[in-house]
C-alpha cells in the first residue's frame, strides 16, 4: 500500500521534474536556435566565474533569478485575485496532462509490475483533451484581470482560437482512436509495437512486401491525422504562427502584457511545458510512444526473423531513451517552426481552423471508418 503510493508519487515527481527541466532547457534552445537561424550568436553574456556555457547559464540560472527578483506588478484597476490565479491556471493543465502519457512499458522489479505511466485512466486521451480545454482559462482570465485593452483583445483572441482548434484536434485524433480501438494511451502505445503486415486485410496482402515490415505507427496509418493534430497542437500552444493572443507587434505582448516577475515566469514555463506536452502527445499517438522498432519485451525481433534478446532492464532503458529522443525531436521541430514561419492574420487563423482543418478531419474520420469496416 505505502509502497504503491510511494511509487506513484515518485513517478509523478519524476515526470514533473523532467517536464519542467525540459521546459527550462527549451528556453535556452529557443534562444540559441533563433540565433542559429538568424545567424546570430545569441545569449552568451551571463557567466559564472567566466563560464558562460553557450548561454545555458542564462536560462537555467540567470533568467529564473531575474524573474523571481523582479517586482511583481499588479495593475491598480486590475483584479488582484484573478491576476494572481491566472498563471497557475495556465501552468497547471500543461503539467497534469503528463499524468496519462506513458513514457515506457512495464518495469518489473521482483514480483511487482510498475506501469511506466503516472495514471492509467481508461479514458486517457479524453483526459488530455479535458485538461487542454482548461488551459484556456489561464490566458483568458489573465487577460481580463490585467484590465488592459491589449491584453483583453489577446484574451478574446486566445479563447476563440483555442476553442476552434480543440475541435479540429479532437476530430483529428478520432481516426487514431478508431484504428487502435482504445482511449488508453498506454494501449495505443503498445499496439504500435506490432507490424503493419499483421494488420493488412486479405485484399491488401499484395502490399505486404512493400510496407509490411513497417511498425504500425500512427504516422503510417494516419498521416493526415498527424498533420492536422500537429498543426492544432501548435495552435494550442499559441506560438507562432498562431501567436495571435500574444502578437508582440500588434498587442505588445497580448494577454500577459501586464505580467512581470514570477507570474510571467509561470506563463513562460507554461508555454514551454505545453510544447513538451504537445511533443509527447504527438510521439505517443503517431510515433509509437516509447516503442523502438522491432523491440519486444524480451528483445529485438526483426521482420526478417533474426532476434536479439536483451535483459529486461536494458529494454526498459531503451524504451525510455527512445521516448525522450522522440519528444525532444518534436520540441525542436516546433521551435524550428516558430522561427521560420510568419504569423497568420486572425481571420486566416479562423478560416484555417474551421474551413480547412475541420472538414479535413471529418473526411479523415469517414475514410478511416470505411477502411476499417472494409478490413473486417
Amino acid at each position, binding site marked *: 500500500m505505502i509502497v504503491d503510493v510511494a511509487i506513484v508519487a515518485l513517478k509523478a515527481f519524476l515526470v514533473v521534474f523532467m517536464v519542467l527541466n525540459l521546459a527550462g532547457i527549451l528556453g535556452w534552445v529557443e534562444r540559441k536556435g533563433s540565433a542559429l537561424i538568424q545567424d546570430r550568436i545569441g545569449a552568451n553574456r551571463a557567466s559564472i566565474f567566466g563560464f558562460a556555457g553557450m548561454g545555458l547559464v542564462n536560462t537555467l540560472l540567470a533568467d529564473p533569478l531575474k524573474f523571481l527578483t523582479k517586482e511583481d506588478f499588479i495593475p491598480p484597476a486590475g*483584479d488582484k485575485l*484573478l491576476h494572481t490565479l491566472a498563471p497557475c491556471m495556465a501552468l497547471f493543465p500543461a503539467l497534469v496532462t503528463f499524468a496519462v502519457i506513458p513514457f515506457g512499458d512495464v518495469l518489473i522489479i521482483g514480483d511487482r509490475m510498475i506501469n511506466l505511466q503516472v495514471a492509467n*485512466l*481508461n*479514458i486517457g486521451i*479524453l*483526459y488530455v*483533451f*479535458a485538461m*487542454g*480545454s*482548461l488551459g*484556456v*482559462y489561464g490566458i*483568458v*482570465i489573465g*487577460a*481580463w484581470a490585467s484590465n488592459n485593452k491589449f491584453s*483583453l483583445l489577446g*484574451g*478574446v483572441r486566445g*479563447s*476563440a482560437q*483555442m*476553442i476552434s482548434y*480543440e475541435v479540429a484536434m479532437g476530430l483529428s485524433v478520432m481516426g487514431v482512436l478508431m484504428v487502435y480501438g482504445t*482511449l488508453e494511451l498506454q494501449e495505443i502505445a503498445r499496439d504500435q509495437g506490432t507490424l503493419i503486415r499483421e494488420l493488412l486485410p486479405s485484399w491488401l496482402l499484395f502490399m505486404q512486401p512493400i510496407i509490411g515490415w513497417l511498425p504500425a505507427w500512427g504516422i503510417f496509418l494516419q498521416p493526415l491525422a498527424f498533420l492536422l493534430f500537429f498543426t492544432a497542437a501548435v495552435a494550442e500552444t499559441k506560438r507562432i504562427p498562431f501567436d495571435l493572443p500574444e502578437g508582440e507587434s500588434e498587442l505588445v505582448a497580448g494577454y500577459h502584457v501586464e505580467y512581470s516577475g514570477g507570474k510571467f515566469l509561470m506563463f513562460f514555463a507554461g508555454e514551454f511545458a505545453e510544447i513538451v506536452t504537445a511533443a509527447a502527445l504527438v510521439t505517443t499517438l503517431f510515433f509509437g510512444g516509447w516503442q523502438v522498432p522491432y523491440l519486444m519485451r524480451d528483445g529485438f525481433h526483426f521482420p526478417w526473423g533474426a532476434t536479439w534478446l536483451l535483459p529486461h532492464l536494458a529494454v526498459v532503458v531503451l524504451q525510455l531513451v527512445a521516448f525522450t529522443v522522440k519528444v525532444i525531436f518534436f520540441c525542436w521541430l516546433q521551435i524550428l517552426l516558430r522561427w521560420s514561419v510568419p504569423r497568420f492574420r486572425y481571420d486566416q487563423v479562423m478560416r484555417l481552423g474551421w474551413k480547412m482543418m475541420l472538414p479535413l478531419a471529418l473526411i479523415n474520420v469517414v475514410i478511416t471508418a470505411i477502411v476499417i469496416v472494409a478490413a473486417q
Partner: protein
Amino acid sequence: MDASTFVFFLLAGLLVISSLLVVFLRNVVHCAMALVAALLIIAIFFITLHAPMVGILQVMVYAGAIMVLFLFVIMFLNPSVLERPRAAWWSFASLLAVLLGAMLVSLFFNNEPAADPVASTELFGSPEMLAKSLFNDFVLPFEIASVLLLVAIVGAVVLAKRERSV
C-alpha cells in the same frame, strides 16, 4: 465518518459555496469562475459515482467549451455597469427559492436506508458501456441531438451576425 463521507461533505460544501458565489458575486467574471469551479466539483462527483466518461465530458463540454464561450461573450461585451439590486423583489424571489429548496430537501430527508447500490462492474460508466447504450437504445435521440446542435450553430451564426446595413 469514513474517508468517502468526508470527501463527500468536503466537496458538497465547496459546491454549495461556489454556487452561492455564482449567484451572489457582483462581478460577472467572478461568477463565471465560480461556476467553473462548481462544474469541476460536479465532474469530480461524477467520477466518484462511477461515471468517468460523463465526468470528463462534463469538464470538456461545460468547463472547456461552454464556460469559455461565456467568458468570450463577457469579454466581447465587457459590461462595465454593475447591477443595482432591487431590495423588494430580491427578498421576495429568494424567499420563494428558499421555500422550494426547503420543500425538496424535506422531501428527500427520509432516513430509511437507501436501496443499497447495485454492485458496479469495472466497465460501468466506461466509454464502451455509454456508447453501447447510446447507439443501441438511444440512437434516434442521439441523431436528433446532433441535428439540434447543427440547428443551434446555424441559429447562433444568424443571430449574432451584424446586419450589413449597421
